[in-house]
């Protein structure tokens, strides 16, 4: 790509980007604010743990994004980059709105295919099984049941897609405390600071392990 994507203009050292985050408002870090403003989130916490200064990370996540929108709107922004690590955190909006499984699979293949060709190790976060919002809002039992089914279906696609491209899927059962409503913000659909910190801890462990294997593979 000859022209830098619009949202990255003014970033002088794109070649140095080591971490790319794609996804929705949870990936953006919503409801885990920095004291000085802006969202920290598990992604910001991951960058801190990996000691990556801001210019070495691109968080392209957009609130409300489905996997189709990740491919259409976020992938073009990062396509020319060569990060060491890509983390995808997406799917709740797909589960709420409904999706075609084959389309999700094709979109995931685009994301993971790009990450692989960029030489990155990749990690996909799961869609949490039961956001408290589903129990709180006026919603039919039928729709609640369908959303829960779609969460499982989307996670199955994430599991399948990561495996096909040699990437890692963070199984929902490695973050069991996400089921605890006290880890969620008032809106019942975003993790709060405690929730982001908890998820970040697990992501950081997996990321370190993946990056360690990457180094071993490159030097060995």
């Amino acid at each position, binding site marked *: 790509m000859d022209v830098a994507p619009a949202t990255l203009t003014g970033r002088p050292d794109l070649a140095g980007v080591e971490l790319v985050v794609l996804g929705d408002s949870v990936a953006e870090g919503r409801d885990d604010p920095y004291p000085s403003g802006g969202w920290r989130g598990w992604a910001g916490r991951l960058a801190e743990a990996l000691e990556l200064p801001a210019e070495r990370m691109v968080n392209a996540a957009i609130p409300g994004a489905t996997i189709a929108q990740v491919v259409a709107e976020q992938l073009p922004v990062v396509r020319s980059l060569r990060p060491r690590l890509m983390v995808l955190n997406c799917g709740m909006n797909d589960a709420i709105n*409904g999706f075609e499984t084959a389309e999700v699979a094709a979109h995931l293949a685009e994301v993971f295919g790009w990450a692989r060709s960029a030489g990155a190790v990749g990690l996909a976060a799961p869609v949490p099984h039961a956001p408290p919002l589903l129990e709180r809002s*006026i*919603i*039919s*039992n*039928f*729709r609640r049941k*369908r959303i829960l089914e779609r969460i499982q279906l989307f996670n199955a696609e994430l599991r399948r897609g990561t495996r096909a491209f040699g990437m890692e899927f963070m199984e929902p059962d490695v973050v069991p405390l996400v089921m605890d409503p006290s880890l969620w913000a008032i809106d019942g659909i975003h993790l709060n600071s405690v929730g982001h910190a908890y998820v970040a801890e697990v992501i950081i462990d997996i990321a370190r392990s993946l990056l360690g294997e990457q180094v071993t593979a490159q030097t060995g």
Partner: protein
Amino acid sequence: MSETETMETISRSGLRTWLLERIAFYLDKPVDSIDPTVELARYGVDSVYAISIISDIEDHLQVEVDVAEARRRGTVDTLTDYLLELVA
């Protein structure tokens, strides 16, 4: 009534009667005071009632309803036609 029975016995008049009963329940009005050809907004069906009614519809018909689309069908009659298309 089981889900299967609901699906098998669905008819235009049956669905319309069921809708009128649900709407009358939420508005706390007699069923026969609601004209299926009159805009529901005129009876005071606001967005909160609409969401409750749509939730009941989804459980009754075992189908997900497009809320924006359902709200464009302003009367019981047009809403009935839309729902019949959905379950067809």
